[in-house]
């Protein structure tokens, strides 16, 4: 089938408004939330129903065409972009919350359901969906499953994997299987665990069954500001060492604070501070104020200038909005942005941040750091002007050095954004060739033809079977 014939065949399934085939209308799908990557696809299909998705994937299987599942396109690893001739399957029209079962605290949703819409729908039952990535107002549950997304509250409540109990998966060959079980553990291999975080390489989630969590009885949200990152890091370590498990501990550095304060989401962070900590405690009303006082004392001890507790829900929401929209506010600093994602042992936070500052100074770039301090998940954001070739080059050099510094400190290359295209080159820093090969073989079990999100997650040269192909031999 030619491209045009394929487009017509897809139109026959989803209707004329469900296929994008002209270069201009494919342009908006050339990027996700990471503006440094632009890969215009050659064809995209926007199914409106579950049956559309199944029929589309079966057609592509028959034709041997690769595909890339895409949700809201808010990912930060260029994972939802099309490599080569892969067809983008946009799942953002499948937004239904199929059912909410307040008694068993479960919900079944379509893959395009927006994260926050589930929490809103569950609110009437005093429940919520715990994983809350910063993009929760836009990102989809399907995308969260693909990336095994975290969010500030995963410190206490766990990541997406801990909240997904079952997924109906459409395999790349068109078969439909169920992984996991809404009623509890399933015997056999934990394929659900393998699927969550597989970045669209194992197939498409047709529906996802997730756990809902009761809203906490009491919440205390605190803001502590410091004149140095080190002091903020000391406070974080002290709180964790004390045995108190906050729902979240988030840190932002001076440049980030100032970008947020200039935005519509200004949260009232002190603009002259070099670090703020946003600490949230939740649980039973009894004892929470005592815990809050202890945390307050630990922050003061570590050098906090002020520690204030949000007086009401409105102030609490404002403090959180500032944190969650921080990355989006970077457009105020410069036109383009590299968002990084790394994890380091929490105790190494001050040294790694010092190293990052040295790297930034050496390459003459500005790094704005946002991090989930409680679990050491670091997001150094570098804003720059993409029209300045020299600056772009320096940014990329610095980024590599930062990633290496995180790995050298005993950390890893992604906490929650996934590998996608962006982190491919770092995979060999973390995994031995044998480990990478094992991942390739797992992928082959789900998708032997490698048609689902090709070219992502595992560098293709790490796959032994690929190395045995004529193409690889020719390259060698």
């Amino acid at each position, binding site marked *: 089938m030619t491209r045009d014939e394929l487009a017509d065949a897809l139109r026959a399934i989803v209707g004329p408004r469900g296929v994008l085939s002209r270069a201009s209308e494919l342009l908006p799908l050339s*990027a996700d939330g990471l503006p440094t990557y632009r890969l215009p696809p050659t064809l995209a299909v926007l199914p409106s129903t579950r049956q559309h998705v199944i029929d589309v994937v079966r057609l592509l299987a028959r034709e041997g065409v690769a595909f890339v599942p895409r949700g809201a396109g808010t990912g930060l690893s260029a994972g939802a972009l099309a490599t080569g001739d892969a067809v983008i399957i946009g799942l953002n029209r499948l937004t239904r919350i199929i059912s909410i079962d307040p008694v068993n605290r479960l919900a079944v949703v379509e893959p395009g359901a927006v994260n926050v819409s589930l929490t809103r729908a569950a609110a009437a039952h005093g429940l919520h969906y715990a994983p809350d990535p910063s993009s929760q107002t836009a990102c989809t549950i399907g995308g969260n499953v693909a990336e095994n997304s975290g969010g500030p509250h995963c410190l206490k409540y766990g990541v997406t994997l801990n909240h997904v109990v079952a997924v109906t998966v459409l395999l790349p060959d068109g078969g439909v299987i169920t992984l996991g079980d809404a009623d509890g553990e399933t015997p056999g291999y934990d394929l659900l665990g393998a699927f969550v975080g597989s970045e669209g390489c194992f197939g498409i989630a047709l529906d996802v069954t997730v756990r809902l969590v009761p809203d906490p009885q009491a919440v205390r949200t605190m803001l502590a500001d410091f004149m140095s990152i080190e002091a903020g890091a000391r406070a974080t370590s002290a709180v964790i060492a004390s045995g108190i498990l906050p729902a979240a501990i988030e840190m932002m550095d001076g440049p980030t604070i100032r970008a947020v304060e200039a935005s519509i989401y200004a949260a009232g962070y002190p603009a002259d501070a070099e670090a703020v900590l946003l600490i949230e405690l939740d649980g039973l009303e009894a004892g929470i104020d005592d815990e809050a006082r202890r945390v307050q004392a630990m922050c003061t001890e570590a050098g906090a200038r002020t520690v204030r507790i949000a007086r009401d829900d409105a102030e609490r929401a404002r403090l959180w909005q500032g944190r969650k*929209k921080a990355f*989006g506010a970077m457009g105020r600093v410069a036109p383009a942005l590299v968002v990084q994602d790394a994890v380091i042992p929490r105790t190494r936070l001050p040294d790694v941040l010092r190293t990052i500052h040295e790297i930034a100074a050496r390459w003459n770039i500005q790094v704005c750091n946002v991090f989930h301090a409680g679990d050491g998940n670091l997001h150094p954001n570098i804003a720059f002007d993409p029209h300045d070739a020299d600056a772009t080059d320096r940014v990329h050099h610095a980024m590599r050095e930062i990633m290496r510094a995180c790995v050298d400190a005993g950390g890893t290359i992604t906490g929650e954004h996934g590998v996608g295209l962006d982190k491919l080159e770092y995979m060999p820093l973390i995994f031995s060739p044998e480990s990478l090969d094992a991942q390739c073989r797992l992928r082959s079990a789900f998708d032997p033809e490698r048609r689902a999100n090709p070219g992502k997650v595992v560098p293709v040269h790490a796959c032994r079977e690929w190395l045995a192909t004529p193409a690889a031999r020719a390259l060698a």
Partner: protein
Amino acid sequence: MTCVHCGFCLQACPTYLALGDENDSPRGRILLVRALAEGALPLDDPDVRTHLDRCLGCRGCETACPSGVPYGHILEAARATLNETEPPPRLARAVLAMFARPRFLALALAGARVLRLTGIARLLARLPGRLGFACAILAASAPPLATRAYVPSARGVRGTVAVLAGCVMRGLFAHVNRATERVLSTNGYRIVSSPGQRCCGALHAHAGDLAGARALARRNIAAFEQTGAEHIAVNASGCGLMIKEYGHLLADDPAWAERAAAVAARARDVSELLADAGPAPGAPMPRRVAYDAPCHLLHGQHLARQPLAVLAAVPSLDVVPLPNADQCCGSAGIYSLVQPLLAQQVLAPKLTEIARAAAPLVATGNPGCMMHIGAGMLRARIPARTVHPVELLDASYAAAHGATPPDR
């Protein structure tokens, strides 16, 4: 301020929610406009035109954007550029031309009033298609409250106010204009007359006819300068936003830039002026009302609290929450005429929420929204009417003056 493509605007965009295509989302349109600007796409690319035409210009995305991208200005500039290669559709041009000609417009609106008064509009409102909806829009503009005029105790301690008469407001909502004057007087503002006003130019600017908008703006600036009033009160939020943006519109015109900025700085939504004054409470009105925020009031002028303060001044008024009241109703100036199907699609979820709220009144401070939502309710047989917030306050003041009860 540049778009970093974070996607936080997607769920704030009514057309993305209705169509599920990133081409019909703010960041998608920004990519398309950027491609035009960089020459990657030709100016006559039909896809770019289609997706820009589908934008309501509600600016909901600006409220969601952490980077503060001035989307509305990007859209207007892009439309102006596209208009150079291909003019907008004939219907849009005809409507814009009519709004630029006061006598012609007055005649058309007088005709519309006849259709409304004779009940013909209401009779035809259930006809299918564009004609039926146009009649429903007209029928929905009739006053929902029978309020007898009263003489406000004018004190004038808060300064002088020139009221923007507005085109649709003057032609179809004269009762709201009278109410605006009475409630402002009651709250201590002294109304001064302001002859020589024209259409504010908002419809022209949104459609990319920036030259037309500038010509109208200059006439209004001159007219308002003549009044010497401290404030320019506007009771149509779309017009209010336009006047507040006169400084931006004429920034490149050295003869007018400063004057435009000065007039823009004096423009206030009527709810702002009233909120500044309290406003004074009236007589109790035990009615149930849902509030829907006009986009150009909430997202354009960032006024969320003030209209609610107006409603709060009416004792025992039961203001019920309307979920997603911050989302566009689909009216958007002449959008409901030039994109009738999509305008209905955008309106549909709002009508569902209104039916659920079960309030006989829906308050909103913009004539387009009043008519579009009102028409939708009429055709969907939802037993509710739209009302301007100042009408409720005015009825409450009238009752306090011992006039007829604010109901019929």
